């Protein structure tokens, strides 16, 4: 039993060290990777690249720009500054610039990988979509969807049976298959108006559900056969062109147009929600779809008909390819972490070191431990397990073995 308890302790120590030592290493030696900020210019039909680390602004041909010139090339992004400077042009591409139109067309959307793989609430407020009031009001009850939809009064914690039955009936009537895979909406009063929720049911059917004058509004959205959505993000843009961005299991990006419920696929490739961040800047002339991964950036400039105008991509060495990463790889055979920037869940995130440069240190530590045992004149056969642990886990195992020493056989 003592031997088993020791091996358990060695295991716990290895696990702890595999979390702590790499973390300390990166805290000491990690250097930030400053990703370029890239936007399509409607003025010269080229991408403008702001390299924050170097402090320069260039286009894809290598022409350099001052801050003022850069802002003038991106008038939709820096409209306020250009207004102050008096440099906002009257027309662009023959279209007269009107502040109301500019404001209406401007949109920004951001989705990080860790927002997709994250705990989600089980209850949501169903706002009154046509209250006749200037601002939205938080309802007294919240809904959950299990084998039906329940509305629960927050102050009494009691199910509102009549309302629950009314909404459940409306959903059943439209062919809703309980329970749900995702409830997507904007559960806040800080939005221009309420459009309820887009709900994916257990059969991957898509429904638009909201409350109008206290009554349920349920609309089933026609989805092409075989198309399955894995994630939906509702938006509240001033131009009211679409309800949401929808991400398919093939990593395609769709929008759901407002009122006519058409699914429009955007011609974007290379977006993986598991390890990429997505930013979408919309304006009067273009949509800039920016995909940021650990080692590259891809930018798609779309026109207002969602057709590709131009694309830009750039890559850089990942952490492991840089000097500090190579040193890390020669010390640590793996890294364990309880958190990840790709998820909000706590898990045991194990990342094995790429390559085998850590083998040399493992062998060195193995030799040191071997000499240590030899000098103590112990029976080496009884330390084979320890030697194997060091050979595999390297520095983690070496420290663990020496913290929890094997003296059972002496």
């Amino acid at each position, binding site marked *: *039993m*003592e031997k*088993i*308890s*020791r091996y*358990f*302790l060695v*295991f*716990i*120590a290895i*696990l*702890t*060290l595999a*979390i*702590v030592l790499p973390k300390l290493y990166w805290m000491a030696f990690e250097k930030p990777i400053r990703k370029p900020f890239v936007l399509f210019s409607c003025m010269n039909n080229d991408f403008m690249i702001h390299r924050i680390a170097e402090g320069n602004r260039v286009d894809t041909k290598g022409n350099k720009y001052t801050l003022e010139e850069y802002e003038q090339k991106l008038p939709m992004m820096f409209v306020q500054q250009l207004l102050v400077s008096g440099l906002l042009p009257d027309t662009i591409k023959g279209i007269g610039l009107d502040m109301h139109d500019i404001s209406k067309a401007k949109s920004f959307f951001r989705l990080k990988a860790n927002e997709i793989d*994250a*705990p989600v*609430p*089980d*209850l*949501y*407020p169903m706002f009154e979509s046509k209250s006749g009031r200037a601002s939205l009001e*938080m*309802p*007294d*009850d*919240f809904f*959950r969807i299990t084998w039906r939809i329940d509305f*629960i*009064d*927050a*102050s*009494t*914690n009691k199910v509102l049976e009549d309302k629950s039955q009314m909404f459940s009936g409306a959903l059943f009537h439209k062919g809703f298959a309980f329970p749900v895979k995702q409830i997507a909406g904007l*559960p*806040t009063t800080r939005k221009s108006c309420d459009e309820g929720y887009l709900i994916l049911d257990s059969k991957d059917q898509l429904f638009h559900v909201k409350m109008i004058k206290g009554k349920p509004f349920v609309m089933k959205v026609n989805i092409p056969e075989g198309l399955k959505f894995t994630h939906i993000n509702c938006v509240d843009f001033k131009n009211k062109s679409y309800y949401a961005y929808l991400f398919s299991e093939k990593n395609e990006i769709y929008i759901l147009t407002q009122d006519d419920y058409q699914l429009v696929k955007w011609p974007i490739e290379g977006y993986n929600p598991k390890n990429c961040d997505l930013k979408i800047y919309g304006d009067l002339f273009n949509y800039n779809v920016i995909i940021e991964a650990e080692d590259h950036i891809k930018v798609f400039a779309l026109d207002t008909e969602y057709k590709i105008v131009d694309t830009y991509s750039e890559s850089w060495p990942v952490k492991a390819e840089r000097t500090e990463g190579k040193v890390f790889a020669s010390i640590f055979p793996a890294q364990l972490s*309880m*958190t990840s920037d790709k998820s*909000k*869940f*706590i*898990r*045991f995130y194990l990342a094995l070191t790429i390559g085998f440069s850590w083998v040399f240190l493992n062998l060195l530590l193995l030799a040191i431990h071997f000499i240590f045992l030899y000098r103590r004149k112990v029976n080496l056969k009884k330390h084979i397990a320890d030697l194997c642990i060091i050979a595999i886990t390297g520095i983690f195992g070496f420290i*663990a073995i020496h*913290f*929890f*020493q094997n*003296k*059972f056989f002496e």
Partner: protein
Amino acid sequence: MWKSIIYKEWLKIRWFLIGFTALGILGVGYLFLTVQHGFTFSGGKNYWYSILFMGYQFFNPIKYAPLAGGLAIAVAQYFPETVNKRIKLTFHLPLGENKVLLMMHAFGAGSLLFSYLLIFGVFAGFSIFYFPVQMITDSIISIVPWFLAGFVAYFLVALVVLEPVWKFRFYYLLVGGFFVTIYLQSPDTAAFGPANTGLFILTATLSIALLFSAYRFRKGEM
């Protein structure tokens, strides 16, 4: 003989156990007093909203309570055994050394579990009044690692206290101190869901950790 050993353990930990349990229950009572206050002043809908969408964790004030309980019970149970090496008397009893130790340990861990269950029960009981089952489940997923951390602290303090060599006590403290922080991260509510099973298994493996240092103690490791 077994009854006498259990009685001895009970004498050592009883006031700490009763005190911790009472404080724990009072702490949970205070917690729900703040919930009641929040409901009264902010309204139920706003209180729920802050929990569901603004990351408010009403249960956060009890985060370190189980850890404190585990530490207190372990110190109360094992520290007296190291004064003048009294535990040697236990090892001289006509019983298996490991069996006696495991009995002591099981009693301590069982007492701690009983105390935790009482506190947990009060927490769950109050929760039912204010929150639907989904919100309670998310809260429980978040607080389970804190209670496991209490057991980890109990097991590791036993390991450290019984270790005869100060240098190794420091090493164990170092590993244990970092290890317990795994259980005490501050993520979103219910984020511990995928990790809880693994954490439970790790906690269980530590339950026999004291056998290692007790062995070193018995063999007179210097």
